[in-house]
């Protein structure tokens, strides 16, 4: 029983090893190193000429200094918190916008449905960077938004380089990742269940909360994870749309890496970010497993 299964796992296992485990170990090793004025800009390096002693010396030189610095620096803690806030808010907003969209799409005829699905995916045909730049054109003081508000005789708003602009950018960019899993969950929903609910005395709005919503929870969770995780580490959007006030951890990593050339510290920040994001996923999986157990 387990043999074919373990054989089937070889390819994805290899994939993960090459593209995740190995790079992860590299970053981990970097995060345990020290900054050095050299190329590459970190120490220690393994001195292969000394053989085993060289390897021993290398491991002895690794330490948690960068993590200690990270813990003592208020700035990075704040950046973490603010990233989580941006991402949480962005996820909730994407859910609020995305759910009705997905619901509406799932309710259309199959033909219309496919067209709408195409329209949701269509933005991916354009570069992400260009789409975010486009928001600069919309949100800038003399931009499209204010021109439109002017037509309606509404005083202009100054959004560009504010946290609100970052929030708008996040929701806009990640909306498809919310809509698609929600759509998949809602489209699968058996319409007779709603008829059964109505037959048993439930008016349509109550049926939504009693049937549609609980059955779409897997889609909600998938969509939220797909939005939340990349949003936390987002770098381009705060860089292009956010001002100095929109501190996000992705941007901090970029700064450390390229502006300060502090590779070990940037790696330490990246590792902490990764660990932070793995926690909710593991929690979710454990809860799913428990729910499955409880059902038996």
């Amino acid at each position, binding site marked *: 029983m387990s043999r074919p299964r373990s054989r089937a796992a070889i390819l994805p296992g290899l994939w993960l090893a090459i593209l995740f485990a190995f790079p992860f170990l590299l970053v981990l090793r970097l995060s345990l190193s020290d900054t050095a004025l050299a190329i590459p800009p970190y120490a220690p390096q393994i001195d292969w000429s000394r053989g085993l002693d060289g390897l021993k010396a290398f491991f002895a030189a690794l330490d948690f200094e960068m993590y200690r610095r990270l813990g003592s620096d208020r700035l990075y803690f704040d950046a973490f918190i603010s990233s989580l806030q941006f991402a949480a808010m962005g996820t909730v907003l994407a859910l609020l916008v995305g759910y009705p969209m997905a619901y509406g799409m799932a309710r259309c005829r199959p033909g219309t449905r496919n067209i709408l699905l195409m329209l949701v995916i269509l933005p991916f045909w354009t570069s992400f960077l260009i789409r975010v730049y486009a928001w600069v054109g919309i949100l800038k003081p003399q931009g499209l938004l204010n021109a439109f508000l002017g037509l309606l005789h509404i005083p202009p708003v100054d959004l560009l380089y504010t946290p609100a602009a970052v929030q708008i950018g996040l929701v806009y960019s990640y909306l498809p990742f919310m809509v698609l899993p929600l759509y998949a969950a809602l489209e699968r929903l058996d319409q007779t*269940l709603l*008829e059964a*609910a*109505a*037959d048993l*005395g439930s*008016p349509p709005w109550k049926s939504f909360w009693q049937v549609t919503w609980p059955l779409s929870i897997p889609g909600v969770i998938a969509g939220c994870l797909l939005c939340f995780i990349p949003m936390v580490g987002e770098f381009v959007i705060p860089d292009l749309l956010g001002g100095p006030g929109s501190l996000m951890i992705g941007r901090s990593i970029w700064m450390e890496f390229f502006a300060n050339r502090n590779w070990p510290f940037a790696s330490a920040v990246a590792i902490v970010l990764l660990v932070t994001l793995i926690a909710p996923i593991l929690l979710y999986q454990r809860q799913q497993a428990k729910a499955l157990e409880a059902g038996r």
Partner: protein
Amino acid sequence: MSRPPVSRPVRSEAGRRPNIGAVRSSFAPWNDPDATPLVRFESVTKRFGDHAAVDDVSLDIYPGEFFALLGPSGCGKTTLMRMLAGFETLDAGRITLAGEDLAGAPPHKRPVNMMFQSYALFPHLNVEQNIAFGLKQEGMGKKDIAARVAEMLALVKLDAFAKRKPDQLSGGQKQRVALARAIARKPRMLLLDEPLGALDKKLREETQFELMDLQAELGVTFLIVTHDQEEAMVMADRIAVMREGKIVQIGRPEEVYEAPNSRYVAEFLGDVNLFETTVEAIEHPMAHLDLAEAQAGFYVLDDDCPGPGSTVWLAVRPEKMRISLDPPAADARNVLAGEIWDIGYTGDWTNYIVELPGGKLVRVARANSRRFVDRPIGWDDKVWVSFDPDAGVVLTA
């Protein structure tokens, strides 16, 4: 308003034909002029595009009745039921329940409950919660709900499965949950859409009787939609046979089986041999029909038989025919000579397919009431098929 075609009254002539069918039943509110129907369909029509799924149907269902809508798929029976439940709107006509017009009442406000063909159990709720769903909507108290749910679980014998989710149940158990959920609210009427379609044969037969017992116990009016004639015949007090959006005959199972009003009904319910013949003479109460294959013609009851010269069909059920290896008396009527063409042995019955000289096939069914037979009939044997004058039904449509 057009009235539905009712089974023709079978005239009782001096003790010769007092009863039709093998079942005696005193429950017949439809024959009582003072009885008030629970549900009335009045000239109900439903169109999907150009196609009339339900075409000017009128139908009364009485309190306590077990009523079956029977027909092939696409005959409009499900649409008719869904209109009563409120899932389809009417294009014409009206439906009243206990005298009240149901028009405009959304499904959740109708005092009927439906058991869906797919059962439509809520997958995220366990058995208990599924059954409680309808009670919760009524705003019933928690204690009352628990008591009612326990009562329902006991009724369908699922006490041990209260905490299971639907995907952990077998088909038969799901069916019971669906049933319990539908009757928990004590509906005025229970609608069952192909309730046994997903069950295997053995379980289906058991469940048929359970449903009948349950209906008797609860006193609720049942409306069942089915394409399975056996299911309808076993369970229903009355059957409406539907075809292309219209009801072609309504009657007790024995009436629609023994006195079909058309070839369609005769062929839809069970097996039948149909002979296209010409009326030669009416010698009341008998009719003489002419048929090339029958030496002396057919001599049958003249109920509803048109005058001499008309073309009619004589319908004779296979089990009402006799088969013999010996030729009958020379002057015997209703005799067909032929050769055995095929034999189907099913254990309880043997079906003989007899080929007549013109090539027409006739089906004769014989109950295997004996284990040992003196002269068994075999392939290519020359046989004589005969039937009694009251075995056949003369059909004009």
